[in-house]
Structures are given as structure tokens and as C-alpha cells.
């Protein structure tokens, strides 16, 4: 499982965009680096991150090797009512990870 962290505000206003912060712990090997003995380190990256709110996809990213190690993403989501926000990620080896948070709407 690929570890990661998710932060959302404790409480949001209905219909008002709120900030979502995601940090994924992944080397994002770009395939251009080498071991000390000259062996190539193969490409190994998280290539997709998707965010759903109440089961509906609201935001996603296709990532390339140009995204830094330990991908950090900040984006916005708007919610009309309380619900579960879930962020899922997958790398090019098919390994996955996810994080979820409950969003309270004031």
C-alpha cells in the first residue's frame, strides 16, 4: 500500500469551495537516475490520483515524471452537504493507496 496524508477543513460552508491537501509518500523515480554501480533505476511513479466526494468524482490528476518525489497536491472542492471525501492513488506497478475524511457542512 502506498501511504499518504489528506487534510480537509473540519467544517465548511455549504457551496463554498474548500481546500484539500494531499501528500503521497512515493519516490517518483523518473527512470533517468542510476545506482552507485551504474545500474539504471527503472521508472516508478504514481500516475493517477482521483478525488471523490459522496462517491462522485470531483477532481483527478494524470501525473508524469515531472512531478516531484512525494507528490503534493492542493486543490478545491465544493460541497452542498456533509459527506465523505476520498482520495485514491495508483502507481505504474498497480500499487494503490487511499485516504478519506468526513466533511461537515455548517
Amino acid at each position, binding site marked *: 500500500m502506498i501511504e499518504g496524508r489528506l487534510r480537509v477543513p473540519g467544517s465548511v460552508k455549504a457551496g463554498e469551495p474548500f481546500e484539500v491537501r494531499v501528500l503521497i509518500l512515493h519516490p517518483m523515480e523518473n527512470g533517468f537516475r542510476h545506482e552507485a554501480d551504474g545500474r539504471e533505476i527503472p521508472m516508478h511513479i504514481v500516475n493517477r490520483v482521483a478525488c471523490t466526494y459522496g462517491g462522485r468524482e470531483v477532481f483527478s490528476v494524470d501525473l508524469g515524471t515531472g*512531478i516531484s518525489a512525494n507528490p503534493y497536491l492542493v486543490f478545491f472542492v465544493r460541497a452542498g452537504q456533509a459527506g465523505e471525501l476520498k482520495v485514491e492513488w495508483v502507481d505504474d506497478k498497480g500499487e494503490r493507496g487511499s485516504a478519506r475524511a468526513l466533511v461537515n457542512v455548517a
Partner: protein
Amino acid sequence: MKRRHFVVSLMLPFAARAQGFSSPADPAKWIAEITGGSTPEKTGIEIEMPQIAENGNAVPLHIRVASPMTSGDHVKAIHVFAERNPRPRVATFHLGPDAGRADITTRVRLGGTQNVTVLAELSGGRWRVAAQNVLVTTGACLDEGSL
């Protein structure tokens, strides 16, 4: 470090350069490929990046596209292109009215001093483009502290 390894590590930047650092990819070609030939407006995108990045491995990137983000008028996608990276397509963000705001922050790798181009796809088949130059003193991608 063994002498042989040291020599190899010295040669790597040149090997990487031979793979395409010296000839930047053409953003106009990339834009045409994605838009299918439409000419994007050069307005309504704000790119926040440092003008000088000491370390190309993690350059903060903040993109804001002016949009009401309603069902009838919103940003559908934001594409990021780094013309001097060995793989210039950095990322594509997909969003819609449920995002509420077309405002994205991340950290990118830059292989050297270059223009970073941002292309936004709006509802109704409209496009916008913006670019910003970043001077990179230590490029990403190579060995020696690439992380």
C-alpha cells in the same frame, strides 16, 4: 566512491543531454495536439512559480484560472508542459463545477532553465494558455541527490 563510478557520474549529465535537453520540445506543437488546432486566448491564467529555483527537483507551482466554475462555464482540464524536461508532459488536472475553484498547487521537477506552459480547457470548447520562465540553477532528473 570508486574512480570508475565517479567517471560514470560525471558523464551522466552529458548522456542525459544527448537524450534531448539541448533541444526543447515545441509547446506550440503540444498545444495544437491537445486543442486540435484551436488558438487559445492568452488571458485568464495566473502561474505562480519562483523566477529562480535553486533546486529543480521540487519547484512550487500554483495555477489559478479565472472561472465562475458553474455547470455552464467552467474549467475542464489544466495541462502543464515543461519544454526542456526529458518528458515534457508534467501533469493533467481534470476538474469541473464540483471543484468550485480552478486553483491548483503542486511541486514539479525542472530539468533546467525553461518556460513552463499551462494550457486550460474550458467548457464550450474554449482554450487559454500562459507560460512562465524559471531559471533553474541545479536541474532535476540526474543522479546525485535527485530526490
